[in-house]
């Protein structure tokens, strides 16, 4: 998001930034998403100074309390403040989502750049591996590895980062193939630039739009996996709240407090919607041609 914001204005008078704003205003879902993410990010960052009860303070005399001034969204099955837990859970869920998405894009960029640039055997091996990984249901392995290494944010970020990079790799490879025979690449090569210099200085910048769009959509994708793993009791482990593990067993409290099953799910839904629609807008802003390919 901010990377676009800082892009230098182009002399044509239609800077990327302005195109982005125009696209954003047209797409109500993305506009809502940006507002939602801004509010959530503010809450999540300001959490330490907000006048909220501790998210882990148990009060067994005050379980399933309805909303009140003390507990704006009521309390859960252990009498913990739901709003405080939602915000603390947001810290974890968003941090894991963002970091893992960045990691997937990093892996994808390395594989895609190498495959597209070197071509030949390197390309064949890397792409066969990428396609092979796409055809294996790695979710079970993810379950096992995360379960055994004890969950937690770091394990989740690594596990998701290592298993969800394939789509990005293919996109980046496509971009590299589009550009690698163009004059500016040939020029750099004939001036004696090394392979790594051509890849990083000349080809990678061409793929930046794809990288940014992939990251935005990747955050949503990874957040869904984090939520599912945490829901199963394998990702972020209690008492640390995450939006996924707040829903574990929530269907059992339906009679006492149906809202416990609603709020965390809505937070996941809105966040993923926001990142996905933001990705769509960014894609349209960067390159109208990319619209038809998706």
């Amino acid at each position, binding site marked *: 998001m901010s990377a676009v914001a800082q892009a230098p204005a182009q002399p044509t008078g239609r800077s990327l930034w302005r195109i982005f704003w125009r696209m954003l205003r047209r797409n109500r*879902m993305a506009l809502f998403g940006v507002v939602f993410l801004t509010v959530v990010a503010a809450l999540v960052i300001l959490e330490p100074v907000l006048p909220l009860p501790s998210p882990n303070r148990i009060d067994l005399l005050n379980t399933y309390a309805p909303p009140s001034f003390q507990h704006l969204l009521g309390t859960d099955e252990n009498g913990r403040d739901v709003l405080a837990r939602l915000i603390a859970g947001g810290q974890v869920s968003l941090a894991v989502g963002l970091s893992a998405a960045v990691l997937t894009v990093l892996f994808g960029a390395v594989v895609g750049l190498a495959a597209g640039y070197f071509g030949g055997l390197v390309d064949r091996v890397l792409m*066969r*591996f990428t*396609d*092979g*990984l*796409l*055809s*294996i*249901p*790695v*979710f*079970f*392995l993810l*379950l*096992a*590895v*995360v*379960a*055994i*290494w*004890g969950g937690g944010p770091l394990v989740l970020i690594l596990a998701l980062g290592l298993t969800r990079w394939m789509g990005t790799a293919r996109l980046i490879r496509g971009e590299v193939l589009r550009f690698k025979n163009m004059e500016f690449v040939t020029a750099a090569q004939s001036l004696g630039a090394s392979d790594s210099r051509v890849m990083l200085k000349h080809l990678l910048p061409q793929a930046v739009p794809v990288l940014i769009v992939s990251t935005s959509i990747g955050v*949503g994708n990874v957040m*869904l996996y984090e*939520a*599912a793993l945490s*829901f*199963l*009791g*394998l990702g972020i482990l209690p008492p640390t709240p995450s939006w*996924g593990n707040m*829903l574990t067993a*929530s*269907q059992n409290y*339906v*009679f006492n407090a*149906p809202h416990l*099953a609603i709020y965390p*799910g809505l937070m*996941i*839904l809105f966040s*993923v*919607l926001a990142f*996905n*629609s933001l990705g769509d807008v960014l894609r349209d802003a960067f390159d109208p041609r990319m619209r*038809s390919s*998706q």
Partner: protein
Amino acid sequence: MFSYLLKQAAASILVLLVVVTITFFLIGLAPGGLGLLADPNMDPEVRANILRNLGLDQPLHVQYFNWMGNILQGDLGRSFTFNRPVMEMILERLPATLLLGAAALVITIGVGFSAGVIAARLPNSLLDQVLSFVSFVLLATPGFWLGILLIIVFAVSLGWLPAAGMQTVGQPFSVADRLSYLVMPAIVLAAGTTAELMRYTRSSWLEIMNLDYIRTARSKGLSERAVHGKHVLRNALIPILTIFGLFLPRLVGGAAVTETLFAWPGMGSMAVAAAVARDTPLVLGVTIFISSAVILSNLLIDVLYAVIDPRIRY
């Protein structure tokens, strides 16, 4: 053609072996041991016995070669927690998962494809906008949360459908009974892929409508029905087959969560339980079994390509 297909399948199998090997060592090197051995008061002799029986007293690489040797001979080993052959346990759970997966596929194709065609036939209409909004939201909805909401509404509040299991206890099997248990998990499992297939169908349908041979078909006086039913449909099936291959692993992964949520006695819920119990042979066995099935069906899809599209030659 076959040599190309075989190469593709061989690559997938190779990747599977690599991934499974990495996972084996990731699990083996993890701190802590089997859940089975968690009891701190266990007699050391009993403990040693259990370890020896499971082959866990040997160095990790020996365990690996023993295990891999058996796999290559088609033996998936024995479950640590149940001390039963993994293959036997998988085959026991397979029918339930197949039923759920088939139901989800039927929903995906039936609803997703038709909704996509409807949206493409009426582009930018209100219906198109509603459908695309719904599919966008569905793609961002965590499946298990959709399941929880369905349970709250249809099982708890309305009491129309059972929330968990596959059959009413003590009742003889009946189709109506089975369907009442099947309907919610199948919808939950199919939600994401249905939404995606709809979007994909819509865009590929619209893209094909703009191609020259469709204009030719129209200008030679074919009815709209013939144009869409014959020319567009057949060509729209090709890209749709492609994402089908990508759906299979996703459906299977989704089955892990869905089956657990609805206590559906399939392979997915078994794998989740096995992962929690650190039952390495069972988790890896399920993965290998399912992956082989997916790789096989991808082969089948590649063959179907050539059947549907005479331009494709391998």
